[in-house]
Every structure is written in C-alpha cells, then in structure tokens.
C-alpha cells in the first residue's frame, strides 16, 4: 500500500503547485476509464464515471487527510460513481450468494475445459470470443461481487487496498472475491461446454 510517488503528488496538489492536478489526471485517467468499462460494461457510462471521479478529485483532493491512501480514495470515488450509475438501471438485490450454490454438481461426464492462458499467446488471449466470454461472465456478477473481483483480479489491488477503497473488512473482501471467481468459473465452464458441444463433429 506504499506508493510514495502518489503520496508526493497529493502533497503537491494540496500545496497548489502548478501542474500537479494535471499530473494526477495523467496518472489516473486510463485506469479509471478501464475500471469504469469493466464495472459498467458501457463506454458512455465509463466516460461519466471518469468525469465524475476527476471532478470529485479536483474538488476534494485538497482536503484528503491520508495522503498515503490516494489510490484507494480514487477507486472508492470511481466505485461509488459506478454504483450510482447502476441505481439508474435495474435493481440488484444485495444478498450474499451461497457457497453451496457454487459447488460443482456431481460428475456427469467430462468437464468443459477452460482455456489455460499460460499456454496462449497474447493475440489468442485477445481474440474476441474469449474476451467476450470473460467480459460477459464479469458483467453478470452482482455488483457487490463484481467490484471486488475487478479491483483485485483485474486492477491488481491488494486485499487491504480493496478493503480500504470499499470500506469493508478484509474478511468480506476475501469471501466476495472467492464467490465472484467461482461464479465466473461456472459461467466460463458453461460457455466452453456449449462451444465444445457445438463444435463436435460426427466421426
């Protein structure tokens, strides 16, 4: 959680140094937008998330009391902007998904193979069907699971920083991350088992 350059940058913003806020924008605009697309699924929504987050930063960063927490503060504001966006859309219940529901069913034949990215070149990994399958699986997650999975596995924040950004205990982050991964796994397995049976040819 130690990002000395970011801490220094925040101190410069708070001292009203010329160009400091522009450097903040350069440092964070790409990741806020990427996070917005991953969370909201739509470029227009991600643009609004980016705009709301940068304006909020411009207004509030001068008063941020813990300069070492700049990154988690940025993600907290961006995550809240995404949640506000979702409230305009369909209602999603805030219940926890049961672990029992995510356990694999009894072995009824061979399982579908989820591709191993270690054996795939980047071009293959970026191919649209595979990207689309993972994106769809992430988008289907209830929002309280999606935000944890996106921050941990896709934005690569450590557990403690995600806990700080979402103001939740680390134990809740770990629990939701595990369930989110299990849901994505289940969804990918269903996708690839569909692909496998669609691609099966008579001998």
């Amino acid at each position, binding site marked *: 959680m130690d990002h000395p350059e970011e801490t220094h940058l925040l101190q410069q913003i708070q001292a*009203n*140094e*010329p*160009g*400091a*806020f522009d450097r903040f*924008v350069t440092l964070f*605009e*790409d990741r806020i*937008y*990427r996070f917005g*697309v*991953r969370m909201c699924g739509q*470029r227009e929504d*991600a*643009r609004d998330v*980016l*705009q709301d987050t*940068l*304006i909020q930063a*411009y207004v509030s960063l001068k008063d941020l009391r813990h300069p070492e927490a700049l990154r988690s503060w940025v993600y907290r504001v961006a995550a809240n902007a995404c949640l506000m966006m979702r409230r305009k859309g369909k209602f999603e219940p805030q219940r926890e998904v049961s*672990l*029992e529901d995510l*356990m*694999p*069913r*009894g*072995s009824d034949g061979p*399982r579908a193979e*989820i*591709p*191993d*990215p*270690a054996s795939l070149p*980047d071009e293959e*990994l*970026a191919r649209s069907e*595979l*990207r689309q399958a*993972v*994106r769809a699986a*992430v988008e289907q997650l209830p929002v309280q699971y999606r935000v944890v*999975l996106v921050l941990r*596995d*896709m934005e*690569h924040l450590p*557990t403690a920083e995600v806990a700080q950004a979402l103001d939740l205990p680390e134990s809740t982050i*770990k629990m939701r*991350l*595990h369930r989110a*991964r*299990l849901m*994505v*796994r289940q969804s*990918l*397995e269903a996708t690839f088992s569909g692909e496998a049976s669609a691609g099966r040819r008579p001998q």
Partner: protein
Amino acid sequence: MTPPHESGSRECRELFGRLSEYLDGELDPSLCDETEQHLGECAPCQEFLESLRRTVALLTRLPGEPLPEEMRAAMRQALRRLQEERGLK
C-alpha cells in the same frame, strides 16, 4: 445437500471454501499444508482447483479497454475550463 463431487467429503467442502486464499498464498501455513495434503489425494478437487486457477489467470491477463484519444482530449479540455472557472492551478 448435493456433495461437491462424487468422492465429495467434508474435507472437500471445507477446501472448496478456501481455494482462492490458497491460490493467492493467503492461507495460514497449517491450513495450507492440510489443503495440499487433501489435493494430493483427491483428483476431483485438483481438477476443480486447476479450473479456478485458469479462471483467475484469464481475469488477470485480459487487457482492459484503452481510453479513446478523443475522450481523453475532451475530458482534459473540460477540466481546464473547470480550473479556469475556479481560478486554481
């Protein structure tokens, strides 16, 4: 209750709940040893762990959407206007 798989046991169910922590290297050493011992003896759990590992690897490696340049330019222009209005640097 449906067992996790045909050879599903209480151990399999307990392990199922902590596979992410195992993959992330966040398990207590004693639980880690217990997990590895069970995995060494239980092929369905091993297979499940491998599918979860691949899922996490896909999520981790998948590239994000880049910020379109015209959006970047428009955003910066809007911020510049805001800075001018507020008279701050």
